[in-house]
């Protein structure tokens, strides 16, 4: 049974901590001792029990903290959740998919009871009991997409598929790694990937797009993405730049282990059955360097990846000012014995 931590913070005093079991199940993203760009998309059809891949949508000990963090961000900036009008069917698809999977995979926390279109949703951690009619927007206190994703960890986007391309036509993005829904809304696949260096030349996006457009119902895919973050600060949006941009200059050999976090996104791609849109969850995991090196081999591997990272990417990920401090600090874990 999944234990949920009491609420911790991703801002101000940063009380966010990983338990030993959260450290063990952290999705460490580097398969080899060297940086390599690839289309690392693979089927997302379950994984070892207890791992972040076990279920379609991972819920962990940080559930309550992330739900609260999302509410704070939305209160300050409601534009972090936007859904274009033609995505209404996709929004209901999303609600159904999340309710079905949460209640199947975490029955101790969630229950879904359906009688035709009369549904009842129970979310015990958040003390919610909601009766509504499936497909009827007015029967819920919020629009369906916002309603359900406010009860789910991670950011969520809906990608409309048309003309052989994907369009970012809805989402709730309160914990992004340097991108903005308000800016990307309505963009095509290549447009919203515009800033990523190198990948365009490698033809990576053409292949990825073809693959994504052919993802089928019940056969989701996933990939990992990573960056480095100062403090466990979820909301690294351009809108919030003042809160994180300057922190890059604060890293010293004394605080690097505590302050620097590896930030990993587990990105899923799920075909929504009625609308044929794609649901794109972006689930973020944060781990401090001092916790990371507690796992055998991870300190050495992270160091080698950082040492082989192309300069364009060092720059793109915003690591220029402190990558050297990290590499130096990790040196004791990279000795042959």
């Amino acid at each position, binding site marked *: 049974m999944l234990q949920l931590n009491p609420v911790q913070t991703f801002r101000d005093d940063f009380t966010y901590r990983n338990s030993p079991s959260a450290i063990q199940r952290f999705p460490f993203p580097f398969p080899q001792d060297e940086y390599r760009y690839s289309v690392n998309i693979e089927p997302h*059809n379950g994984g070892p029990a207890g791992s972040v891949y076990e279920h379609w949508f991972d819920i962990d000990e940080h559930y309550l903290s992330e739900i609260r963090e999302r509410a704070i961000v939305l209160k300050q900036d409601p534009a972090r959740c936007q859904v274009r009008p033609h995505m209404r069917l996709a929004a209901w698809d999303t609600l159904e998919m999340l309710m079905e999977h949460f209640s199947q995979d975490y029955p101790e926390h969630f229950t879904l009871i359906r009688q035709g279109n009369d549904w009842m949703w129970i979310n015990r951690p958040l003390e919610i009991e909601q009766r509504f009619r499936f497909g009827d927007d007015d029967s819920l206190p919020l629009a369906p997409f916002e309603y359900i994703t406010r009860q789910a960890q991670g950011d969520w986007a809906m990608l409309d598929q048309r*003309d052989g391309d994907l369009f970012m036509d809805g989402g709730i993005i309160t914990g992004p790694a340097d991108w903005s829904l308000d800016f990307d809304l309505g963009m095509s696949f290549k447009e919203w990937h515009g800033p990523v260096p190198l990948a365009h030349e490698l033809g990576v996006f053409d292949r990825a797009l073809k693959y994504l457009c052919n993802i*089928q*119902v019940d*056969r989701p895919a996933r990939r990992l993405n990573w960056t480095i973050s100062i403090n466990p600060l979820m909301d690294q949006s351009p809108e919030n730049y003042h809160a994180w941009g300057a922190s890059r200059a604060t890293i010293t050999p004394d605080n690097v282990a505590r302050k620097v976090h590896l930030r990993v996104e587990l990105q899923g791609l799920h075909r929504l*059955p*009625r609308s*044929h849109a794609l649901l794109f969850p972006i689930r973020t995991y944060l781990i401090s360097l001092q916790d990371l090196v507690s796992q055998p081999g991870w300190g050495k591997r992270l160091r080698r990846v950082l040492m082989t990272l192309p300069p364009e990417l060092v720059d793109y990920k915003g690591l220029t000012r402190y990558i050297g401090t990290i590499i130096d600090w990790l040196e004791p874990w990279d000795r042959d014995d």
Partner: protein
Amino acid sequence: MTQTRHRVRVSAVARLGPSIREIHLEPLEGDHLPAFSPGSHVVMELPLGEHVLRNAYSLTSSPFERSRYAIAVRRQPDSRGGSRWIHDELVPGRQLRIEAPNNYFPIRAPADGAPLLLIAGGIGITPFMSLLRARRPDSGPMSLHYAFRDRVDTAYLAELKRLLGSDLHTYESTAGERLDPASLLAAQHLGTQVAVCGPAAMIEAVRAKAAALGWPEQRVLYERFSAPAGGTPFRVRLQRSGRSIAVSSEETLLEALERAQVPVRSLCRAGVCGECRTDLLGGEAEHQDLFLSDQEKTAQCAVMPCVSRACAGGELLLDL
């Protein structure tokens, strides 16, 4: 990985014409089947004698109906026995297995409000039915041009008339009526989305005309109404196991490999999804798929066993 399978029961067999049956399927477990989008198909397992044939059929029921699916099947004189089995053996009460719906022909109205033009040839009407049966007053402008041999043996005519009214245009070839893709396309508004399903010649004519008119490629969506199954027999050799397998004229390369218990991943079984891609080490293939790029096809470096065959009289060497 294999696709989720669902056990279903045939709840009704309806006669849509002398050689067309509509089959209704209801779930054996639970009270609803997976939701799907217009243009989706299911792969159905047909137990034909000692082997199981896996055939794909478009879902013709409305996506809003979850308690049953419908498919329509025309009796094909030259078929591998699938349609004959459905027509002659399949009766209500019979239990079958189907795979969860897939969609490689996602038909939808353009988001910009431009009109949707549907072109169907014969039994190629089937993938459009789920869209049309779910049509609502606010679904946006659409019209259907439906060509067939003769009225008597044509699926869904009366229902389409009711659903579409004056947006239905029919062409009965035995009465001398012809659907001419060139003039039809030339008369369309700029930005129209076309979806065509029918014989290969019809699809080619539509695509060629659209290209000639300068339409963007993405505005022409097409689906062959059946994957090309069968052709001239040939042999494949498998590099890794050293085996040699005969592919008869009745079956696809994928089916022959499955029969010989060589595991190959597959999904669409129509040369679209890319799942079955297999490296080609020798021989010349007739590709027939929509997945490999032109360069890959010319280089003869891979085949899609669900549709590819050997060029006449040849033999293929596969990395299996």
